[in-house]
């Protein structure tokens, strides 16, 4: 389906993924899951979700047929926002900017922020807040989740006591800690792409892609983030995408409805296994999509036999 040839200026994406014995996202101060009081649903921050999306964008670009000639030899200067570099070191603003200037062989670093906005692949999609006094490089995001990604059901949290690999100096202590994980969570995220904003952001971008190609790149990266390019850490690796539905909403009539609200329709609120989760999603997904104008959505990617009808 050609998702661009349409009068609407927006694309909506409903993306689902499963987490099993994983810990997708925790509050950085309390280390606790984000739990919806009263329902036991688990949600993640938008920052966490986009972090994985950017990570995969970096990898997808390096093997993209059109982008590989330009980005394939770059190490750091593909996406801008990363906490650490591929050298394993934490990066600060200066080192990120320097990496771009070096890898793109920029002789003139005046207005560097504006130049980075036209080289980095994540900035036209997720935005850029340029804090430089003299730079005018701020870019408004063109892709955003309309709600924080959330499980559509109550999730059980399991606590595991573990012994660390190296005990503490105190010989009596084995260096134990308590680790919390989700037994099972099927997350749903309703995401919007603003095509007008994307077109504006990608004008004169070095990638040289059409708006349609940018959309395809973004969707491929999101899928890769939860399939081929999952983060290998203990808390992240057991998360797998299940489906991605894409359509053009008629915003004169379609109002976003939080996919987390599928909770209300469930007979059994607590879901503990993948088979249970997929069975419930198969039952309720078509009605949810119908309610938000996605009855004719295209199933762009699918695993595990989910259907939109």
């Amino acid at each position: 389906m050609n998702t661009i040839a349409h009068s609407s200026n927006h694309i909506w994406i409903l993306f689902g993924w499963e987490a099993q014995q994983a810990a997708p996202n925790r509050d950085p101060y309390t280390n606790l899951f984000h739990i919806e009081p009263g329902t036991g649903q688990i949600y993640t921050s938008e920052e966490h979700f986009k972090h994985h999306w950017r990570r995969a964008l970096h990898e997808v670009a390096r093997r993209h047929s059109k982008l590989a000639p330009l980005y394939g030899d770059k190490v750091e200067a593909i996406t801008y926002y990363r906490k650490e570099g591929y050298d394993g070191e934490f990066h600060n603003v200066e080192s990120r900017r320097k990496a771009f200037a070096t890898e793109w062989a920029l002789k003139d670093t005046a207005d560097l922020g504006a130049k980075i906005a036209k080289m980095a692949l994540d900035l036209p999609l997720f935005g850029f807040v340029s804090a430089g006094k003299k730079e005018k490089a701020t870019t408004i995001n063109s892709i955003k989740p309309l709600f924080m990604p959330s499980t559509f059901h109550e999730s059980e949290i399991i606590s595991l006591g573990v012994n660390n690999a190296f005990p503490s100096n105190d010989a009596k202590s084995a260096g134990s800690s308590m680790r919390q994980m989700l037994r099972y969570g099927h997350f749903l995220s309703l995401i919007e792409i603003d095509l007008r904003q994307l077109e504006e952001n990608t004008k004169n971008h070095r990638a040289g892609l059409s708006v349609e190609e940018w959309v395809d790149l973004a969707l491929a990266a999101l899928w890769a983030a939860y399939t081929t390019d999952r983060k290998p850490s203990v808390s992240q690796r057991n998360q797998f995408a299940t489906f991605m539905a894409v359509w053009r909403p008629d915003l004169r009539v379609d109002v976003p409805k939080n996919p987390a609200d599928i909770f209300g329709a469930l007979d059994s609120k607590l879901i503990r296994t993948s088979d249970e989760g997929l069975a419930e999603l198969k039952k309720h997904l078509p009605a949810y999509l119908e309610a938000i104008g996605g009855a004719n959505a295209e199933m762009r990617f699918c695993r595990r036999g989910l259907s939109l009808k």
Partner: protein
Amino acid sequence: MITVEMHGGCGFFRNPLESGTQYSSPGPAPSAIAGFAGIALGFRSQSAGPQAGPIPWPVAADLLEWLRKTNCRVAAAWIGGSPTIQRRSHNVNAIKDAFRGNPGECFVRQEQVLVWKPSYLIAFDAGEAEEELERALREPYWRPYFGSRNSPAWFTAVSRTPRAARWARICKDPQDGTPITQTVINAQEAGERLVLRDTFWDYSVLRVEPSLPDERHFVAAGAILPAKA
């Protein structure tokens, strides 16, 4: 008068009185509501716009001009599912493009307290511009948001018929208030971008009976002043 409902998953209305704070004000200020009109009408964002004359920072020049011409006034009411505005702590690891602070840091832990599941009723009194504004609210050019760009919102129920609601009241000492500010146009002399009017919108009006919006509730949306240096 035009009224419109606005809904979203969360809202983050920064308080200019507390620079650096991450505790959201209870609802949008009149200047933020001016921004809602600007978004609907398709004016460019403040941060993406050019400098307008002597003002040394980016401004939404088209919006300022529209506000000057229309003398638009606004009112707001909380209409969320809970009787009082609910806030929720939502701390994140974020990456800031900060040029201050320790050179080794580019990511920060942000403590944030957001308005949760916000819903507001907004009234616009924009005179002859109301027909254009009504069309724009029905089909907004850009996606509106509640303060932060991570807090998308949407317009519904656009109407020319005012509704009774617990409209936010102008006061000096609110229980839970949003500071009211105005944009300064002679910033080079004044040295300030915003003027605080020492007034607030009090959104916590549980004991007030619902009423139609009137002079007690309307504030000029981002009215522009020359400020004294």
